[in-house]
């Protein structure tokens, strides 16, 4: 199929399509092009749903779509025509589509609802938000981190068990603890919790989940769980007869055999219990591994000694007896595993219930809940239909990315949805892309085989099935090495089909470096190592340090020398940012990072959850901990040693030997007497200042103060090695951001913040905050795990530690089998070390092992295919011979079977041109207004508007307004409610009553006695200032201006003097407004006195 043909089918908006596309083939291009084609086809944005696996990928897709739509809106006509043609728009349609193409940018930007590009989880959450109310999910939010809840669930379970020592669950726990210990019990039940989605699915609809699961196991058991295997065997007279015959013959065999026979006879004849007797027989006949001992075989010498036929009979019996013992042993093992499952499954289920109850009480869901709830919702046809119309968006086109990472539950959701849609004859058009070779998330439940299954499901419904094995990413030499590496394991790794490079001309290179070898053991001459002069070192570290040095040296030979064919700028010399370093696990990262640091190579590690481990963040957390617990000496010492204060060890020695209980007391005493070094002298007042703020300021504001007055950013920049500075700045910023964001800024107490951070720290990698991201612009080598590098690429990829063997799988965990496409798993059990695995689980173990092997290849495939131009492989010497990635790639590459290293492809080294006239970027000199580095005092604190005096006035006016005639006065309580129950109400109410009850004032409040009256008469003076007069009353003879005063006790003269100016202003206003009428002014005191102001 030509690329054009491929695109014609893949991008046809009316055609459902499944694409199996290799790494680097441009899946995102394809997906986004498909969206463009849909939009061009007048599909409303709200009908498109694209689902991918990470938020990052979703954002990238969104950005790419925006870019393209903007391009179509703004580019020249010809460019847009070419753009459309490239995306297989039929030539005859292009012209007519041009206006629409140009308009899409805005159509999509302003669409309501817009196009949905999301992860499964995010999309599931929106579904849950619209779930029917009766399901009771309203108001639930996503739990940000569940570690604390899990810990609490353990506590709750322990409390329950402690309260009921005789309950069967408690007995189960005791027995499990006795059997496998606390560590393994925790590991096992945590693993159970982690697979709760499968557990729910497996036991769906069962009232007693654990009982059901146990019953399933019992059915698979080769023997009744309570059967007395040993007793039955030893009660089998025929077999016992054979056994005796065997032992008799055995006693004629070799000395070893004779001993064996004696041991067995002893066990049989003594009245030992059947079990002990059985054990003795097993110990004699079977090896530790449970195999029949090879001690009884046919040999000529023995035949001569015992007689041929006797020996033959003995050998035959040895096998018969041994086989029977083996099967009995297997049966007993199965019983044991069954018992173990009975206990552990019930405990796991109980623990899970506690956990669920805790979440429910807090109204939170975790991701597993979200997934399960959505599966439930869509599994119920009534609710599924409700959701279909409840959602504002009605999806008709679904694009599924990275489908190999889908888990069975997600597929179940899709399937229910498709089924409902099909019934309503509204089956959406599905576009599904993935690559089973890049499936590396089995540990999270992903099931790569779903890709085929979904592919077939869609094919049956008319979807086209396309494969794509041309990579646009990797240069031909890289592709060739990938092909050769996997060709060598073809029989084991059938997923792989040879790739081709899109552009056959690009140059590229692959290097496999020799494994770092253990250094010669240096024999210490005499005596023991002196730790003051000689650091301790072990060979494993030394080996890795060698590999790391190799890395650093080679990188410095590459950067600035190799020629990179940059897509955007054309050929240029390699920079640090072009290099991506991959490791399988983080274990040895520090060694490599040290070497990079030493070689002054800037690097950035994308370490999920690394923020809280960073030294600078630790320093500040220590500072905060010190501020809440000033007696914590080590925290203080750390803060003093950090760049914040840069105290020397001699300073610490001074404090260590000073007088005083705690270091904080000593520090203050020394500083008070000016006996301290300048560094300590500086520390004392700053710390005291921060300490005084710690309880009062929100954490973020406290940190801000610390950053500012402690010059944090600048001081760290001065103290740290240059390679680390960008990362340090980013981390310090990220900590501030964490302080702003934690718990949505709610209830911000410092101890609580530290507690939360502590929890995040314990959570481990997945939920704890990432290290601060440095701006994209940094020119640094990046280090990733292979899992973390999925979806990324780089011109130069370095695969480290390739000599290591496969990681060992966990003991004590869950064994499940969820056949692709089934609604629920077919098997769910737990297992432990080798004594806790049974024959009835064997098939599933085999399947697991097959999957693990395949994923190991997948992982290597993903690692190698990140490289655009160059791939470098290194490692440290390994005991695994060639059964490691280094060996696999090397043997695919080398021509000489003994070669320890190999290289392939073009020499990318290009001498630097004699002179590189690089025009310096135009420097825009920033003209900073003077003083901008200095404070600009602005604004002022004023008495808050709600200060009591003002609000008293407001309340009094409001009351008078409502109770003075002609109003019909409401009851005090009702009015109080109306006015929002102000504190001043009661006294203002009395005040108002007094005014109304004062006979002298009646003429001002009785409508019968006045011509007109205004409450709160507002007027403006010439400057536009507004004034309000409490009351203006027109009597027959004059207009009265009245002003209420709340203060009591002042004499008439005092009041008159105090308010003279104010009332005069009122007077002249009223004169203007009522020209020709006499205006009289008065103050009415709280006690009802009327004081006229002349």
């Amino acid at each position: 199929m030509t690329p054009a043909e491929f695109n014609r089918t893949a991008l046809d908006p009316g055609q459902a399509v499944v694409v199996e596309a290799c790494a680097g083939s441009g899946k995102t291009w394809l997906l986004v092009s498909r969206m463009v084609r849909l939009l061009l086809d007048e599909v409303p944005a709200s009908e498109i749903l694209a689902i991918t696996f990470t938020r990052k990928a979703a954002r990238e897709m969104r950005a790419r779509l925006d870019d393209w739509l903007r391009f179509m809106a703004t580019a020249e006509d010809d460019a847009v025509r070419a753009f459309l043609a490239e995306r297989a728009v039929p030539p005859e349609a292009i012209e007519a589509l041009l206006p629409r193409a140009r308009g899409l940018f805005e159509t999509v930007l302003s669409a309501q609802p817009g196009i949905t590009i999301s992860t499964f989880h995010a999309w599931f959450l929106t579904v849950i938000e619209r779930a029917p109310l009766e399901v009771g999910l309203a108001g639930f939010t996503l739990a940000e981190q569940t570690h604390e809840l899990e810990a609490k669930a353990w506590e709750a379970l322990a409390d329950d068990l402690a309260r009921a020592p005789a309950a069967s669950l408690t007995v189960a726990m005791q027995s499990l603890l006795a059997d496998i210990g606390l560590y393994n019990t925790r590991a096992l039940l945590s693993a159970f919790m982690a697979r709760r989605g499968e557990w729910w699915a497996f036991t769906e609809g069962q009232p007693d989940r654990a009982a059901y699961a146990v019953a399933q196991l019992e059915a698979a058991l080769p023997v009744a769980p309570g059967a007395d295997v040993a007793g039955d065997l030893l009660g089998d007279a025929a077999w016992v007869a054979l056994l005796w015959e065997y032992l008799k013959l055995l006693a004629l065999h070799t000395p070893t055999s004779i001993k064996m026979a004696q041991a067995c006879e002893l066990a049989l004849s003594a009245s030992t219990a059947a079990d002990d007797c059985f054990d003795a027989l097993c110990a004699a006949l079977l090896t530790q591994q449970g195999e029949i001992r090879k001690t009884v075989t046919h040999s000529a010498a023995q035949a001569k000694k015992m007689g041929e036929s006797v020996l033959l009979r003995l050998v035959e019996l040895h096998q018969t007896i041994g086989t029977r013992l083996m099967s009995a042993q297997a049966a007993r093992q199965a019983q044991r595993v069954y018992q173990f499952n009975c206990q552990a499954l019930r405990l796991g289920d109980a623990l899970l219930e506690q956990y669920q109850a805790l979440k429910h009480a807090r109204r939170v869901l975790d991701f597993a809940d979200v997934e399960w709830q959505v599966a439930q919702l869509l599994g119920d046809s009534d609710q599924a239909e409700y959701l279909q119309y409840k959602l504002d968006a009605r999806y008709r086109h679904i694009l599924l990315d990275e489908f190999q990472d889908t888990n069975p539950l997600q597929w179940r959701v899709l399937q229910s949805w498709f089924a409902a849609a099909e019934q309503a004859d509204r089956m959406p058009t599905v576009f599904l892309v993935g690559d089973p070779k890049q499936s590396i998330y089995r540990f999270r439940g992903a099931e790569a085989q779903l890709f085929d299954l979904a592919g077939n499901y869609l094919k049956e419904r008319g979807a086209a099935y396309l494969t794509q094995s041309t990579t646009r990413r990797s240069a031909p030499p890289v592709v060739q090495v990938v092909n050769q590496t996997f060709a060598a394991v073809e029989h084991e790794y059938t997923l792989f089909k040879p790739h081709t490079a899109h552009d056959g001309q690009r140059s590229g290179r692959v290097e496999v470096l020799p494994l770092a070898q253990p250094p010669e053991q240096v024999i210490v001459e005499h005596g023991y190592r002196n730790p003051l002069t000689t650091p301790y070192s072990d060979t494993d570290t030394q080996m890795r340090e060698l590999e790391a040095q190799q890395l650093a040296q080679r990188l410095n030979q590459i950067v600035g020398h190799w020629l990179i064919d940059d897509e955007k700028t054309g050929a240029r010399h390699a920079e640090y940012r072009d290099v991506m370093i991959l490791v399988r696990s983080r274990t040895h990262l520090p060694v490599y990072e040290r070497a990079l640091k030493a070689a002054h190579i800037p690097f950035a590690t994308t370490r999920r959850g690394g923020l809280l481990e960073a030294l600078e963040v630790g320093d500040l957390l220590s500072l905060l901990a010190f501020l809440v617990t000033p007696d914590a000496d080590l925290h203080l010492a750390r803060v003093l040693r950090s760049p914040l204060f840069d105290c020397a060890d001699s300073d610490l020695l001074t404090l260590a030997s000073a007088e005083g209980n705690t270091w904080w007391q000593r520090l203050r005493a020394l500083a008070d007497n000016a006996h301290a070094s300048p560094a300590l002298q500086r520390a004392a007042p700053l710390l005291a200042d921060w300490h005084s703020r710690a309880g009062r300021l929100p954490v973020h504001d406290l940190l801000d103060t610390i950053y500012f007055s402690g010059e944090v950013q600048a001081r760290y920049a001065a103290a740290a090695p240059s390679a680390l500075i960008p990362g340090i700045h980013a981390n310090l910023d990220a900590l501030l951001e964490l302080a702003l964001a934690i718990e949505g800024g709610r209830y911000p107490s410092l101890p609580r913040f530290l507690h939360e951070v502590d929890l995040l720290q314990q959570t481990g990698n997945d939920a704890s905050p990432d290290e601060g991201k440095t701006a994209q612009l940094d020119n640094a080598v990046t280090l990733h795990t292979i899992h973390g590098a999925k979806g990324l690429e780089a011109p130069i990829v370095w695969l480290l530690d390739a000599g290591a063997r496969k990681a060992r799988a966990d003991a004590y965990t869950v064994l499940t089998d969820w056949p692709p496409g089934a609604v629920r798993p077919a098997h769910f059990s737990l297992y432990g070390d080798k004594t806790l695995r049974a024959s009835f689980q064997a098939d599933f173990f085999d399947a697991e092992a097959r999957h693990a092997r395949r994923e190991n290849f997948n992982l290597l495939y993903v690692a190698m295919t990140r490289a655009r131009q160059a791939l470098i492989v290194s490692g440290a010497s390994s005991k695994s011979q060639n059964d490691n990635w280094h060996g696999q790639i090397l043997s695919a590459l080398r021509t000489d079977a003994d070669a320890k290293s190999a290289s392939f492809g073009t020499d990318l080294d290009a001498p630097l041109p004699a002179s590189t006239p690089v025009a310096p970027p135009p420097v825009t000199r920033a003209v900073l207004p003077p003083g901008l580095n200095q404070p600009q005092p602005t604004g002022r604190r004023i008495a808050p508007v709600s200060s009591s005096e003002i609000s008293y006035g407001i309340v009094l006016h409001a009351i008078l307004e409502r109770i003075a005639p002609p109003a019909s006065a409401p009851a005090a309580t009702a009015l109080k409610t109306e006015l929002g129950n102000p504190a001043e109400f009661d006294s203002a109410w009395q005040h108002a009553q007094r005014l109304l009850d004062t006979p002298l004032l009646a003429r001002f409040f009785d409508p019968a006695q006045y011509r007109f009256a205004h409450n709160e008469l507002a007027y403006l003076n010439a400057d536009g200032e507004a004034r309000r007069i409490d009351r203006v009353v027109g009597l027959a003879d004059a207009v009265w201006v009245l002003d209420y005063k709340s203060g009591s006790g002042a004499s008439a003269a005092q009041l008159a003097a105090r308010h003279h100016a104010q009332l005069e202003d009122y007077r002249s206003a009223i004169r203007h407004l009522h020209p020709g009428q006499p205006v009289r002014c008065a103050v009415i005191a709280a006690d009802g006195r009327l004081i006229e102001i002349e």
Partner: protein
Amino acid sequence: MQPDLISQTARRILAQLAGDLPDLSRACVLVPNFHAARRLEQALAVQCGLPYLIPPRITTFPAWAATLPVTAALLPDSRRAALLYQALKASGRFDSADLWGVCDELLRLFDELTLHAVHLPDSLAAFTEQLRAAYQARRGRGLDFEARLIHELWYALAADAHGAQDAAARYTLQLAALAETAAGPLFVVGLPGYSPLEQACLDRYAERQPLVYLTPDTHGAVLDALSTAWPADPHAAPIKQRAHALRHIQPTSPLTGRLACFGAVSLEQEAQACATQVRLWLAEGKQRIAVIVQDRLSARRARALLERAQVLVADETGWTLATTAASTVLMRWLEALTGGFRFEDVLDLLKSPYLLADQDAVTRGQAAWQLESALRRHGPAAGLNGLKTRVRNLAEHSAALGALERLQQAAAVLPPRTELTLADWLARLANSLNALGAHERLVHDAAGQQVLSLLARREHELLPDSGRFQLAEFRRWLAGELERAVFVDTGIDSPVVFTHLAATRLRDFDAALILGADAAHLPGNAGASVFFNQRVRRELGLPTQDDSLRQTQYDLVQLIANVAHIRVLWRAWQDGERNPVSPWFERLQTLHQLAWNDDLADTRLATLLPHAQLAAPAPAPPPTPTRVPRPTLDSAQVPARISVSAYNSLLACPYQYFARQVLRLNALDEISSELAKVDYGQLVHAILHRFHQTHPVAAGTPPETLAADLLQFTEEAFAPVLADDYFAHAWQHRWAAQIPHYVAWQLAREQEGWRWQAGEIDAAETFDLDNGQHITLYGRLDRVDSLQASRAVLDYKTGGTAGLKDKARNPGEDTQLPAYALLLGEDVGQAAFVALDGEQKIETLALEAEPDAAADATRERLVRLFEQLHASVPLPAHGADSACQWCEMRGLCRKDYWPEAQS
């Protein structure tokens, strides 16, 4: 710039009412907010040319309506919620933890229905049918449920209200009556839209009195550019065409220099840019600066940065009361009560300056530290009595005990299991706050005052409510109240105002900055209801998202048209990923680029930022680059004693030894109930010691008896631990399983001739140094056995066996066995670990070197090391990775910052 709508309005009013001057009180003017009212008053006063003027009533729609007399008592929202809660609870439809949330949603919906005059049909069937048609769906359980819930409760609530009016209903009634009061002309100025009831009110008014609508201009250079960028017509020509047409009319951009956009790379940079821009404007002398807050996070950060420069901000947006320190202490108190006083909550309370504010800070600090120390040392506890017991373990405990007793007294008024009315709970809460000494602090805190007055207001409103609630229900209710209440600090007067977009209507700013203008925050999609969907809302006549978008766009246009300097800020990168700008600015920038070849990006701000950093208040000389520390000691500072484990630390890393032993620093223990490995080890040591004291010789006693004794000692030793930690059972099992093996091992050892001699022996040995000083090595020997003249020193190990073999093989690197041999003295026949945790066996792992020789070498090295320390040889930090991994001194040695791998 176009004449401002406010002055146009003033002119129009004065012209139309010339005959009324100076008393315009007959007329009424409706404005969007009171800021606009102030401006209009000023414009009127200035333009009328009179010394005094009675202005028209200038007001907002709600305030105007509120002037009408009321016809029925008010049913406050708090009481509605309480009524609704009880009705819902009785219906049993929802989980109790959910109920307040559902109440809120329902009340919000009911208010919307009232305000938009949507009448529910009388019959449920009719309403269900109405919904079904609006959804364009078949009927189903979900739909029926939604319809029934709303319908039933709507009518139930109306019945329960007994004729009282809720605020929304009152507003609609007042609106309906407003037109009747028409006594003069009405001017409606710059209102962006009306609800149907408001529109009806205006229409009726217009029948009685002249009514004038005054709306902003729709044309002008800026407005034309904006309407080209954001055309109302969805079928407008493509943007490129529009841009070219615009350019044809306006060869130069009206926006260049007026509006600029800045995409920051991080939250911090966004906030920095905001603060810098505001300070630049201030430096230019701008008087009224608005920051329009779309993203609260950036705004909080920006405010902190401005305050560094002593620029105070008048924050009109406020923040929810729930985020203030005052609320914190309240909610933490209730959480502590409902959670049974977990130690985390209690510590948090004791560390809060709001509590026990009547005591001095030192006593409070002591109380917290005493409790914390007790918990760290003796494990956690819960409940005030439990905590008191823990505290009594300490010698110094009066402060903590006093504080806990205060808590206990205060807690007595809030019984968790009793059902009381909300008003009752509120009153008791107030009492308890008094008892805690919190009231004092709260009244002196701006947010605290608002919290207290909120509590008082609710208490009064809820007095008539007779519904009964548990403490947990009350706590959830209060959390919701604090969440909803907005705290606005009105105590700041500043030219810099943080505000909402809608609050900028008809206000006058010299410059405005839109903060957080990314697609997620502008428009943003807050406030979606759980009921219905957009289509149904439209069908029913409720406002939809489209309406709110239109409104936002209207406000944006007005802002840009009326403010001469606009900056648009957003985070263009988030978590290393691109983050799109608001679609409005995306379109505007694109249009501008196409029309005038300039995308309005602010390039100056980016270059200024690094230089605009504020100088620290007291700058200090910068620190020196970090180096590997190599402290030296004066002879007098060198310790005279060293334990065996400290000797090991010195071997692993001299600096670690320095920090632990010379500086005497150590990390605080975790507060944990869990039996740690060390504790387990100690227990087993004690059990074995007791066992051997009881049976110095085991042979001769039946193994069963020995095992039974050991088991009994084990149970006795574990009993107190099990009370605190259920999972300690696991450790007990672990050890109990080894008991038979231990007995067997002991008997075998006696067979070899070894006899137990003593256990838990404190030993010390002093050696001379060349400068006349001495060094004493000390340690505790777990056990000494003898075989004739020869003796053995044994060390019990409860950890894994794997590492032990290496240690026994390497006397130079793990000094325990040789050092014990040294401490034991002459004739050491054996120095060995006893691995107690083997797979069903006990193993003796003996030192693989001649004990005496190893002891000698150990002594020699010890002496040499201390002679060197006395001679001020430095103690470098150079632990191997394995040592550093768990080293608590990593923050002191600063290993992560060392410039190079040490050579």
